[in-house]
């Protein structure tokens, strides 16, 4: 069964090439003019990109299947052009055992729409008290460890984790939040929170941990990835650390690029997210950080929640918003990126950080893995007009003008999305 992607512009290592792409089995078998296949997908007006890789997806299974399952989250991912999702470990049970990690991976295989790559916890139960079995988890194929949802508060524990991770050749990913500064917070601490009388999450709560971990990386020779950076000062700290040559990478979530804390004036808990939406100046600094490469990757922090956890007072509402289905459109609207930039920030950089190259994140090439995203990067659409794929409805993009839409997704040589529709 071969698939020909016809009439598109292929983003290759040699630049953009107007060509068809032939997929045969799991690999790209030809790139050139007038290729025919058993199935043919129209790529006219589209770019053929490497399939997107999300470093930060909450799939909720096991434990919170009413919000999302690995199957529904995979569907949302495929619709967004993703072929690999790193599954965050704040499941129930948490992904701190080989059993749970294997379960997540096998559910991903059963869904068959993307590669589901379970992350592992840094600490047992994400409780921040003692290390999880990092070596056992690494032996089971885990390449990225995080307590996401919690930052590792204890500096001594974090220091030991960095040393162990260095031994194992895996990366630690930190959710930067000094929790003593954020108790009860529902939004950015800012003039808006003062006006609305809502408890604030100050920027310094993130920046203190970014600074601490940069210092620990210098101290240990370890390596760290910063999840969902949200403040201008965090970007500046990472920029300085990189200039120093430290092994530091960073991601930003689409919502922090395009939304700001003013959204909370609606009191709509769909805009409650952790870390919170920040100021327009922070969003501008994050966009600049992506453009100059300080921030390596865009990662969705896709965080589905059922209505009964969102149609409640803000302090009771669960933090998080959907992201997979609209990430490309948000990146397009926020950054007007070149096709090569899209490939870098949404595929090759995240694949490199999570250790997924070359199966993921490689620019289309003959002989390479057939994990591809075919997208019209100039398509204008309005959030809410396309299906999210998710089981949940906490979509912050309803009514927002977006730029860039996924037409087809090819995963492992199979078309998982054709003309914006999931192929089960």
């Amino acid at each position, binding site marked *: 069964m071969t698939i020909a992607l016809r009439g598109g512009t292929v983003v290759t290592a040699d630049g953009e090439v107007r060509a068809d792409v032939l997929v045969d089995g799991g690999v790209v078998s030809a790139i050139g003019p007038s290729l025919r296949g058993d199935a043919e997908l129209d790529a006219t007006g589209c770019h053929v990109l490497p399939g997107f890789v999300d470093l930060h997806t909450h799939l909720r299974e096991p434990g919170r299947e009413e919000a999302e399952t690995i199957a529904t989250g995979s569907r949302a991912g495929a619709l967004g052009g993703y072929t690999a999702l790193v599954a965050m470990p704040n499941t129930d049970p948490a992904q701190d055992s080989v059993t749970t990690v294997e379960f997540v991976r096998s559910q991903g295989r059963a869904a068959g729409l993307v590669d589901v790559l379970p992350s592992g916890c840094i600490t047992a139960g994400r409780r921040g008290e003692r290390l999880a079995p990092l070596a056992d988890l690494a032996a089971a194929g885990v390449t990225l460890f995080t307590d996401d949802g919690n930052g590792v508060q204890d500096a001594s524990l974090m220091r030991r984790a960095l040393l162990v991770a260095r031994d194992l050749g895996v990366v630690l990913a930190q959710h930067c939040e000094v929790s003593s500064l954020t108790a009860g917070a529902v939004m950015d*601490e*800012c*003039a*808006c*929170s*003062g*006006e*609305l*009388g*809502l408890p*604030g999450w100050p920027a310094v709560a993130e920046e203190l941990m970014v600074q601490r971990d940069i210092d620990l990386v210098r101290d240990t020779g370890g390596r760290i990835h910063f999840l969902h950076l949200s403040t201008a000062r965090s970007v500046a700290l990472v920029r300085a650390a990189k200039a120093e040559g430290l092994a530091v990478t960073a991601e930003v979530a689409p919502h922090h690029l395009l939304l700001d804390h003013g959204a909370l004036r*609606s*009191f*709509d808990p769909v805009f409650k997210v952790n870390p919170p939406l920040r100021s327009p100046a922070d969003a501008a600094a994050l966009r600049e950080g992506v453009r100059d490469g300080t921030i390596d990757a865009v990662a969705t922090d896709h965080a589905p929640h059922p*209505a*009964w*956890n969102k*149609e*409640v*007072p*803000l*302090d*009771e509402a669960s933090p998080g918003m959907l992201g997979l289905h609209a990430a490309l459109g948000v990146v397009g609207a926020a950054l007007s990126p070149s096709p090569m930039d899209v490939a870098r920030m949404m595929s090759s950089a995240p694949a490199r950080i999570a250790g997924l190259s070359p199966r993921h994140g490689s620019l289309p090439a003959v002989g390479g893995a057939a994990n591809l995203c075919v997208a019209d990067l100039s398509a204008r659409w309005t959030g809410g007009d396309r299906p999210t794929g998710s089981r949940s409805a906490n979509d912050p993009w309803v009514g927002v003008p977006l730029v860039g839409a996924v037409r087809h997704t090819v995963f492992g040589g199979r078309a998982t999305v054709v003309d914006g529709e999931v192929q089960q």
Partner: protein
Amino acid sequence: MRHVLGIGEIGLERAEAILALVPRMAEVRSRSVPKVAALRGRTVAMLFLEDSTRTRLSFDAAARALSADTMTFTASTSSMKKGESLRDTVETISALGPNALVVRHRTSGVPWQVAAWTEAAVVNAGDGAHEHPTQALLDAHTIREALATESLSGVRVGIVGDIRHSRVARSNVRLLRMLGASVVLVAPSPLQPPGVEGWGVDASSSLDDVIGGLDVLYLLRVQAERITGGAAPDAGEYARRFGLDHARVRRLRPGAIVMHPGPVNPGVESSVDLSRLPQSVVGRQVANGVPVRMAVLLDALAGAGAGMEEE
């Protein structure tokens, strides 16, 4: 039918219209049969998920004085089940067909959320640290009454206490500025709200610096955990810096008044008995609660033309 959410939404014109109704409402209350038919056949539902007996009884009395039927849902009676969302609760109550929903909640924004889920007029009876518009309206009425002036321009109001966590402060700042008063917020910096410099008011961390220039000294209720949570090591130090005592009473301008939204924490906001202090208008604030809430309900449900004839 229209919502009464925050002072900003109400605006100056409507606030003045509500305040203009208050003397007529007070007159109704003084009748031998203190009741008019204005809202007969209407139902006012109280959704008080944060306990506040005083405010709830005040709204209840106001609704009954206008001949509305009332029903009450509190955190204990509404039996919010685990897994039942606020929206479920609101839709259940709305199905009973109330014309107005008076909402009190410990969390900012809840009345705005509720307004999206009900056909009823939503009246904000206090949300989190955000707004308490009926308190601000009754305070404005009390100030006009006590200072015997319609215009508040040139009037200097000092609000003292936990501004950061106070809905009374926020609604009062908005309404008092709208009415022309100038405001100074007095609190230790941890209890000043972020962004206060954009509020069009002055901020001070010293009551002694500002007390001599005030026409109105408005003491907020302060919760003990907020004091030890950042304002001062204990209530004693807070009282020494920000509490009203006899020495500070002597520094008040002639004609200045002292206010408090109640209930007072004795010895914290004031070591002087506010029920006996000549400058205190705390009793007037309490007395104005029902007529102001009658005016608000009338404005929300009937408009100013409603019948004032006796029942």
